Structures are given as structure tokens and as C-alpha cells.
């Protein structure tokens, strides 16, 4: 029994007119918590970024204006970390998308045991980042690692490679790990989207004699446009912010080869130079706004449509 649209709107209207305290009381606990642990700290970070705030010299905390921002602009490690972040996100999320889409298409077919296969293929997504870092660190190990053994047996390499210890291989290997982590999430979201495409669209295309490629590009991809957009933006934000995987694989090394901006901020925070770390965190947040703003816009649009 659904109320008709007009009845429902009338109900809403009535609630709007008398200003009831109820909704405000209900959101108050969540709101107060978030203001205390998110918005206040963000303001605090902005404030700290204008200070020389080093906990190793707590007596010398003082206001320095834009000094931290000027040192960030002149810090070659900052620019390197920013470049690493762009590659990390671009290549990492790109490959997650391609392989996640592939997995979603493969799981969308009917076969025996599909439910189980679908569940177990999601496990990397719920694995702790620390464990991901450590598991792969052991796989990549230069002396006893299984990857070296497999490549040797296949005849692809003659002697062991210390994957994470040399500059040329460390970053690709770290990216491979984040791709492994992200494939299931893309597959999960895209699979849900695929199941929402009406079968008739494909039937109609078959009647018109479309081949598999034409069906894919003229039906599948356009139908999934929104899912692809939202999932990709969300994943970009997560991957750009992720610290635990890289930190547990390489801690940003060797010689900063795998140090993204998030990891750089984390390392600086560990050395207790909080003013400078805050400055770089704010710069990271500002660069992410490029992605976050369109994401939020889409979310709101879809929410208004569903109401």
C-alpha cells in the first residue's frame, strides 16, 4: 500500500510548515561528533599550516605565515611525491577499472557455482591494507619470494630480482598490488550495473544483427555510464589517500621511489613536524577537490531524482 505522490507531498509540506524539533534532535549526535572529529580538526590543520609547529621543539611553536607553503613549493620531494601520486592513481585506478570490468563481465555469465566464485573473488577488498602490504612483500621477496621462483621456472629471468629494493621495479610492483586490491570493488559495482540492464535491449540488438563489440559499445557501456563515473571517482579518492599498502610494502622507499603525497605526509607526521605535514595534507586535499566536486554533484543529482 503506497501513498500516492500528492498525498506524500502533502505530508511533507505539513511537516515542513511546523518547525518540528525532531529531525534536529535526531541528527544532533552525529552532527556534533562529526563537527568535533572532522571539521574542527580540518580548521586546526589549516591553522597549523601557518605555524612552525614541530613537536620536537614544542616551546618554539609560532606563527610563520606562508612559510610552510613556500617551502612546499621549493621542496623537490613534494613535487616528486605529487608526480608519483598522479601515476599511482592514473595507472593504478585505470588498470583496476579494465580488469574489474573484465571480471564483472565474466561473472555476469551463468555457470555452476557462480555465487561462491563471486563471493570469494571479493576477499581482497576486505583484506586489511597492512596484511596486503605484508603478503605481497613476502611474494616479492628477493631471496625467498615466490614471484622470483615462478619467473625462474618459466625461464623469464636468470637470477633473482630484489623487486622492492631497486628503484626501477619498486613502483610498478607497488602499483600491481593496489590493482590487485581494487579489481574486486570495480567488479562488484559494475556487476550490479550489468544486472540492471534489461535483457530486451540485447535481444533487439541481436535482431538488428549487431555483433558482440557493437553490443558492448552501444548498449553495455552507455548503460553503465553513471556507475563507471561514480565508482571511478570514489576509487580515485580512496587510492590517492591510501597509506597502509605502500607503507607496509616499502615505507616510501627505496630512495623515495614509492613515496606518494599521502605517504610523504604520513612520514613527515611521524617525524612530528606537524606544521609542514599539515601544509602538504591541505595541498593534497585541494588537488583531490578536482575529483571530489564532480563526484558530490552527481551524488546529489541522483538523490534528487530518486526523491
Amino acid at each position: 500500500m503506497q501513498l500516492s505522490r500528492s498525498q506524500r507531498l502533502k505530508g511533507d509540506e505539513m511537516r515542513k510548515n511546523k518547525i518540528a524539533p525532531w529531525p534536529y534532535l535526531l541528527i544532533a549526535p552525529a552532527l556534533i561528533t562529526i563537527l568535533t572529529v572532522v571539521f574542527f580538526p580540518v580548521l586546526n590543520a589549516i591553522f597549523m599550516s601557518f605555524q612552525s609547529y614541530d613537536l620536537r621543539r614544542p616551546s618554539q611553536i609560532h606563527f610563520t605565515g606562508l612559510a610552510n607553503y613556500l617551502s612546499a613549493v621549493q621542496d623537490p620531494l613534494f613535487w616528486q611525491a605529487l608526480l608519483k601520486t598522479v601515476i599511482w592513481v592514473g595507472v593504478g585506478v585505470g588498470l583496476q577499472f579494465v580488469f574489474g570490468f573484465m571480471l564483472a563481465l565474466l561473472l555476469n555469465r551463468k555457470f555452476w557455482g557462480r555465487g561462491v566464485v563471486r563471493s570469494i573473488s571479493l576477499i581482497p577488498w576486505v583484506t586489511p591494507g597492512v596484511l596486503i602490504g605484508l603478503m605481497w612483500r613476502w611474494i616479492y621477496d628477493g631471496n625467498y619470494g615466490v614471484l622470483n621462483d615462478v619467473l625462474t621456472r618459466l625461464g623469464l629471468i636468470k637470477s633473482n630480482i630484489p623487486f622492492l629494493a631497486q628503484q626501477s621495479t619498486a613502483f610498478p610492483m607497488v602499483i600491481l598490488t593496489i590493482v590487485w586490491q581494487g579489481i574486486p570493488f570495480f567488479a562488484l559495482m559494475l556487476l550490479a550495473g550489468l544486472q540492471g540492464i534489461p535483457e530486451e535491449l540485447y535481444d533487439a540488438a541481436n535482431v538488428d544483427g549487431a555483433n558482440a563489440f557493437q553490443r558492448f559499445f552501444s548498449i553495455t557501456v552507455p548503460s553503465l555510464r553513471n556507475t563507471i563515473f561514480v565508482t571511478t571517482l570514489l576509487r580515485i579518492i580512496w587510492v590517492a589517500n591510501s597509506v597502509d599498502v605502500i607503507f607496509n610494502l616499502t615505507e616510501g622507499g627505496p630512495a623515495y621511489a614509492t613515496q606518494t603525497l599521502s605517504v610523504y605526509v604520513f612520514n613527515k607526521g611521524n617525524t612530528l613536524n606537524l606544521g609542514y605535514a599539515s601544509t602538504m595534507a591541505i595541498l593534497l586535499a585541494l588537488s583531490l577537490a578536482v575529483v571530489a566536486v564532480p563526484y558530490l554533484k552527481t551524488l546529489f543529482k541522483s538523490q534528487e531524482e530518486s526523491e
Partner: protein
Amino acid sequence: MAQTQRGARRFRRTKRFLRALPGHILLAAMLVFLLFPFYWTFVTSIKPQKELYSSTVTYWPSALTFASYRKLFAEYNFIRPMLNSLLVASLTTVVSLTVSLLAAYAFSRFRFKGRKLFMTMFLTNNMFPTVLLLIPLFAIMRKIGILYTPSALILSYTTFTIPFSIWLLNGYLNDLPRSLEEAAMVDGANRAQAFMKIILPMLIPCVVATGAYVFMTAWNEYTFAVMFTNEANRTIPVALKNFIGQLGVEWGMLTAGGIVTIVPVCIMFFFAQRRLVEGLTAGAVKG
């Protein structure tokens, strides 16, 4: 006659199987890639110490041993970080669910001034980099004296669990028609009674799924945990990471710890999976 029919059917089935074969092979290859690390972690955890560091890599241990697990619990008292994680994750779940359920109900059932602004505030939360919050929170917690206590972790985890739970629960609630409570309210129940008697029982599976997700994220979290805990209250991820560097790397014990960590997560995930996936994908797919 019957024989030729059966033959034709078998032929069709074989043909269908052959057409699906490349897909099956590709899927199998992807599954090997996705699952091999877990297999390798498990095998490592049950190998004898000297086999781990021998010149030939073995894909199944020559002799099974649970020595790494024994050492993990007996010598390194792994039960302590496990209890710490359990405490932090459970309390985070209870706090986040209570607070978020109330807020989600308000967003779903009332139209009020500032509703959109408040929803934006909660959604924007997920956009702030962890490291941006980490530093001021560290300074604040230190100042108010709760740094290195479980409260510090629980509070900092609500920064991402509350917005996320509100988003999920709001979606689930929007799927339950308002007429449900309105009928009860016509019959004389007040809003709170209608919520407790009608909505909450129907929402329980969704609350459980959301709770499972919150629990998993708190159980898995590392970045806040490493900065906000000390020896006494460190959680599992920090304990695992600390195995590296104490006495060189003890891979047997580390992988044993990994297996112990991930088993509860997997069990929870399998139970909550269906609802969780529904809730997660609803927003993106509807859009």
C-alpha cells in the same frame, strides 16, 4: 530416433561449453591472481622454519607444522592485540550505528530546513584525506589526554564510519515505504513506537550488514592505529607491522598472524555480503 535426439542435445551442450571455454579459462586465471596471495600466506604459515628460508621454494610444505601459530600466541601474546582490536571495533560499531541510525531516519523521513546542507556535510567527509585529519587529531588527542587510549581510536574511526553508515542506512530506509509507519501512527502509535515496532525489525538485516562493514573497517585500520596507540593497546594491524624489524622478519609468524586476522573478517563478510552489496551499489546504479 530417441538416440539421435539425445546425440543432438549432447552436441549442443558440448558446443555451448566450448563457446564458454575461453571465458572460463580467463576467469580461472583471474581467480588464481586474486586468491594466490592468500594460499601463499597460508602455506607459509604452516611450513617449518628452515623450509621457508631454503634455496628451493616449495608449494606445499614437506611437513605440516603449527609451530608459527604456537609461537604467535605463546611467545608474542597475539591474543592481546586481538582483544584490543575486538574492543575498538565493537565499540566503534555500536557508537556509529546508534548515532547514524537516528540521523539516517531524520534524513529519510523528515523534510526540514538545512537538510541538504547537513547531508552535504556528511557526504563531504569521505573526501578529506586521512592524513589531513591524522595530524590535527593527534595534536588534539594529545592535548585532551586521550592519546594512547582506545577512545582515541574509536573517536577517529567515527570520522569515516558515521558518514558511511548514514549513507547506507539512508538508502535502505528510503526503500521502506512511509505508509508503513503512517498506518501505525493513524492507529495511535507515536513516531518512536512506530519506528521501534515497525521499521526497526524490518531494517535489522540492513543494520547488521552496515555494522559488519563498520566492524571490518575498524578491525582493518592501520594509519590512525599506528599513531594513536602504544605498546599496551596496539591493535592487530600495528602488531603485525611491528613483527617486522623486531628480530628481522619472521615470515612464519607474520603469515600466521595474517591468517588469524583475516578469518573473522571473511566469516563476517560472507554473512553480510548480499545486503552490503545491495546497499553499496544502490546509490551508484540508480544514479
